[in-house]
């Protein structure tokens, strides 16, 4: 029996836990759902994109709008740059997500009260900006000043949580492609977020999805916009490098 235990130990300690090639979550969808995602008329996530589009062009109390600097329909924006978030902010001296960057603009450049993380306005703006960057290749950096934040996100991804004592890595690396009852486990790539979920009939932000996963482990979730979730988003962004943005993705 001892020999069996040693063999089990050797197997689990040597077994590689790596994602060879990132595969978008849309590869795990039914044909109908994928078609719905592709068709911007049928895609129910477009309602949130349109809301973000309206906000992007809407003047604030002093008459300034995002579009004043970034152009109508964001034509002055570097779409490829949008696919690099979270990215290091010299101003905040830490990695910032696209939602945070929008908030920095809104508060510092336009002198408004900041929005709360994951509120409808920021999720709408994020959805709109990522929709503008649809098809851009994700390229999030893990080196330089963001390195310690990336490492913290990686630790979180591998940490066990809750009464079920599970970690992200279990489903999305070790058991991806296998079935949890009728549901196929995806790689947990983030190139489609914010996503429209057909099961709930609403847009789900990435941080909200994190909380849902943690709650399903019977764990106390972190808060949207918390350091933990931003570090995790950074780690997952790097993990999604090479995939194309599909926002708003549709999920079952």
């Amino acid at each position, binding site marked *: *029996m001892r020999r069996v235990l040693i063999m089990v130990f050797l197997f*689990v300690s040597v077994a590689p836990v790596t994602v060879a090639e990132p595969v978008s979550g849309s590869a795990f969808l039914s044909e109908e759902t994928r078609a719905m995602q592709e068709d911007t008329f049928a895609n129910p996530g477009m309602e949130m994109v349109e809301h973000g589009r309206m906000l992007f062009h809407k003047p604030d109390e002093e008459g300034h709008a995002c579009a004043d600097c970034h152009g109508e329909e964001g034509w002055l924006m570097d779409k490829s740059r949008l696919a690099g978030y979270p990215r290091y902010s010299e101003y905040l001296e830490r990695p910032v997500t696209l939602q945070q960057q929008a908030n920095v603009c809104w508060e510092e450049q336009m002198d408004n009260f900041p929005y709360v993380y994951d509120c409808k306005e920021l999720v709408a703006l994020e959805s709109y900006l990522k929709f503008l960057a649809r098809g851009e290749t994700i390229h999030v950096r893990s080196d330089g000043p963001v390195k310690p934040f990336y490492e913290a996100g990686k630790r979180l991804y591998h940490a*066990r949580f*809750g*009464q079920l004592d599970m970690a992200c890595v279990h489903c999305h690396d070790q058991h991806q492609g296998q079935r*949890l009852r009728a549901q196929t486990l995806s790689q947990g790539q983030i190139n489609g977020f914010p996503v429209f979920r057909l099961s709930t009939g609403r847009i789900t932000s990435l941080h909200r999805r994190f909380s849902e996963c943690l709650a399903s482990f019977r764990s*106390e979730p972190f808060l949207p916009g918390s350091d933990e979730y931003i570090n995790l988003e950074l780690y997952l962004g790097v993990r999604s490098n090479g995939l194309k943005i599909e926002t708003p993705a549709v999920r079952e």
Partner: protein
Amino acid sequence: MLLPFTVAVAAGEPYLDWRVENAAINSPLGGLQGNPSRGRELVIARNKGNCLACHQLPIAEEPFHGTVGPSLVGLASRLSEGEIRLRVVDEKQLNPQTVMPGYYRDPATLNQVAEAYRGRTLLSAQEVEDIVAYLASLK
């Protein structure tokens, strides 16, 4: 038929210690006697064992058995009752990287548990014994 699961789950039931010998837990938790037909209900129930989420079982009336873990069909012809008990109680004793939850792991070893579940094992000792009795009947 809905079973009255709540009967077995006494809130704040004291955690009972267990001991691993030769890769098995040979004594039933708290010396309790398992009921295999109740165990069968518990392996199906999504808020209890939910074993079907990951494993194949000889339970034809339930669709979509998971494929994350190995099939449990004929399990008792491969493992003794004590070996089955260890795997239900805490598979991490055998495989530290497993995704499988320890259904009777010391709650003090768990991280950031939601308040409603804090200080509790996933299943009660009686529920573990019921499931072990059912799995041990799968010759």
